[in-house]
């Protein structure tokens, strides 16, 4: 069964890049433009993995992660934080909020797929890259 990934990013092109990469690896992607939209998606349907940007209007990725964790209850849905800021504070914030891991932008497509394959084993049948 196709796994569904929620991609949250306010930058349209980046969101499209993430979705395209994941779709070409055979995953289903739902998009949201910020944390508020992201939570709305979570309320409406189940997802298997969340990839979220940090810096977004209305609700940033850290707050979104925190609320998403609450919303998900105990369900083991990994949350990956996508950010250009490789500094410790953001990463620690994300971690405290309940994120599973982080990916630095800019990323290589293979990298993104590899990370997803790792946190969501079995989701990608034949890794496109590597």
């Amino acid at each position, binding site marked *: 069964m196709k796994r569904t990934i929620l991609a949250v990013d*306010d*930058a*349209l*092109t*980046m969101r*499209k*890049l993430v979705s*395209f990469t994941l779709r*070409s690896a055979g995953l289903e992607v739902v998009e949201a433009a910020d944390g508020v939209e992201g939570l709305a998606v979570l309320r409406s349907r189940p997802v298997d993995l969340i990839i979220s940007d940090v*810096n*977004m*209007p209305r609700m940033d990725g850290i707050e979104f992660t925190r609320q998403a964790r609450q919303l998900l209850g105990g369900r083991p849905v990994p949350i*990956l934080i996508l950010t*250009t*800021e*490789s*500094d*410790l504070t953001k*990463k620690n914030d*994300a*971690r405290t909020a309940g*994120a*599973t*891991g*982080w*990916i*630095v*932008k*800019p*990323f*290589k*497509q*293979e*990298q*993104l*797929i*590899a*990370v997803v394959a*790792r*946190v969501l084993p079995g989701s990608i049948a034949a890794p496109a*890259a*590597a």
Partner: protein
Amino acid sequence: MSQELQQQFVRDMLAESYEGLDRFDRAILVLEQGAADAETLNDIFRVVHSLKGTAGCLGFQRIEKLTHAGESLLDLLRTGRLTPSQPIASALLRLSDNLRRLLGSVESTGADRNDDEHQPLIDEFTALRSGGVPVSSPLPMPPPVPPAPPAVATAEPAPAPAPGATPTTWGIFDESAPAPVPAAPGEPAASWGLFESATTPPPPAASPATPAPAATAAPAAPAASSVAASTVRVDVSLLDKLMNLVGELVLTRNQLTQVSQSRHLRAETVSSVSQRLNLVTTELQEGIMKTRMQPIGTIWSKFPRIVRDIAHDLGKQVRLETVGADTELDRTIIESIRDPLTHIIRNSIDHGIESPAGRAAAGKPAEGLILMRAHHEGGQVNIEIVDDGGGINLARVRQKAAEKGLLAPDAAARLTDREVLNLIFHPGFSTAEKVTNVSGRGVGMDVVKTNIEKIGGSVDVQSSAGAGTTLKIKIPLTLAIVPALIVRAGGERFAIPQVSLLELVRLEGEAAQKALEKVYDAPVFRLRGNLLPLVFLDRELKLPSGTDGDGILNIVVLQADQRSFGLVVDEVCDTEEIVVKPLGKQLKGLPMYAGATIMGDGRVALILDALGLAQHSRVVSQTQDRGHAAGTLDAAAASAAASSSQLLLFRVPGRDHLALPLDQAARLAEIETSTVERTGAREAVQYRGRIMPLVHVGRLLGGAAADTPSATGPLQVIVYSHSDHVVGLVVDEICDIVSAAVELQPGTAAPGIKGSAIIQGKITDFVDVGGILRTAGFPAARAA
């Protein structure tokens, strides 16, 4: 990722970034004034931040590096560790300029490479950053993604990262042991990470041996137009509506096919299909037009920056205010008014607004004001650019015109003030004492005027000494489909766009014989006391002379270049919406024609260009030419018209003097009483394939003897269109069209009457159309 896809992403990035940078510029201007709030700072941080991420992913390293420098500075600003200052604002504006240029080269060549030297700006950012709290260290620069030469591009020595933050590029958090994520062996720096137990082996590093796909694609085919101009955003609900309408169109087509195949063709069936087709087409046309509409704010948004830069250069203080930025017009028109508007703004700042000292001496605030206003009016868009500067010095203009040999000195003295003002639109005219960097580049107001007239618009200038100058631009909403009057002359049909149409005059019998007068051999017609130069269309176009026998004179009064003239035609047919087709290049040089159109019977009709026709026949000529007597009178009339409004005077039983602004009336029509259909108390007629309810103005105003129809002849109807409907206002007699300066006074207050004014020596009541329609039970009278 295929090259095509890569290009698609690049196009997305360009469109998104251009939009973001416009927002960025505006925010910096706010920042410069010290009025930026946290949300604004966050927003511009995000613009640069997003561009950095996207550009990085798509392999544009120069953009990435430059945005990184800017991002670090903006991060200090938004977290309050650095206070905004003039040098910071200037550097940030330069950042957006450099980024635009880089994006421009991505657009044209596919690579972010140009002749700009970015290092000085990056160094400047570093210097500015250290002006903040010393603790701030620049964010570490991530290594470039496509590792052509691995990690060579880190020109900026990354400062030692905070302890614990390995320069990895991904990681997985561990619930219990926050161990730094080990960098994958072989990879210079990992680019992701998971926070998980330390026992988990490091991620199978996305094999660094695999070369990344060539991210920098081969140069994209140079786009003819810029990315921003080649895409348009359409509301999904509008798109759905259009789809619905296309569905309707298909159904109607099917119906028509069926009807045309039936053996016994019945007139009613055909007419019902045609009515349906008419309805669907009209709605489809309106819908498609909407997709082409853009708010004028899309180009206005660039002006704060332009104003700031010019004012800075000239040492002036100028504030720009805008009203009506959401006024929509066709995108092709939006594009073509960008340059004229920019030029007018330049002129206003350069010639209009005085220096701070000069303003202080004149008792004005040091900061000058430029106001841009836009609004819809009668199928046109009015744009005004108002400045509160010194106004145009008429004596100076007269003198300059004489000096430059544009006019003989005595001729200059004879000109009215209004004509003198219009000299600024004369080619080669410039009053600037010294040629500044800003204006006086050989492009003058004449080019502005030409460009605006090219799209069927007009420019007018008003100025009062010491108080400022106002430029008024009128432009049509669209150029593709225009309402036009169809006339016949010399056996041919011609279309005259309604924007240049003022009124129609029909003279019969004796009146026609007496009407023509001559001024210096030029035929003129005395229209309400003003001399109107006449052009005979058949003679002008050297067509065989039309039907003179019936002794009827049809004069179409046209406006061109702020003057009016009468065009004599054989027959006035009807008004129609015509689709404008450009002329072939063999005919393009003829100034009298604006294009061609295809009529209902499939034949081609030429579209007349009022200005070209006037110039060709020399009724509107270069300022000092012949017919000055007529010209001056005319200019006086035009100037009166500009400062006042056109009014339609009419009568209903019991009220002899009523008026209504002419622009509220779509058409005047005569309707045979026999065609009126009644449903209960309501009356309606079929009018151009639509149902037009009739409203008896006399009955609603409760005049005396309102119920006795005064005449048995056809009904006189003012066709009034509001939102999607047409309503016919039935009156007793349409008396005249006048232009007058109106000052409404309460007067005889009554329902349906807005107020009164004295027109032609009579107290005239102004009808409140909106009110009347509401009384008559038409709730949606928004347009009134």
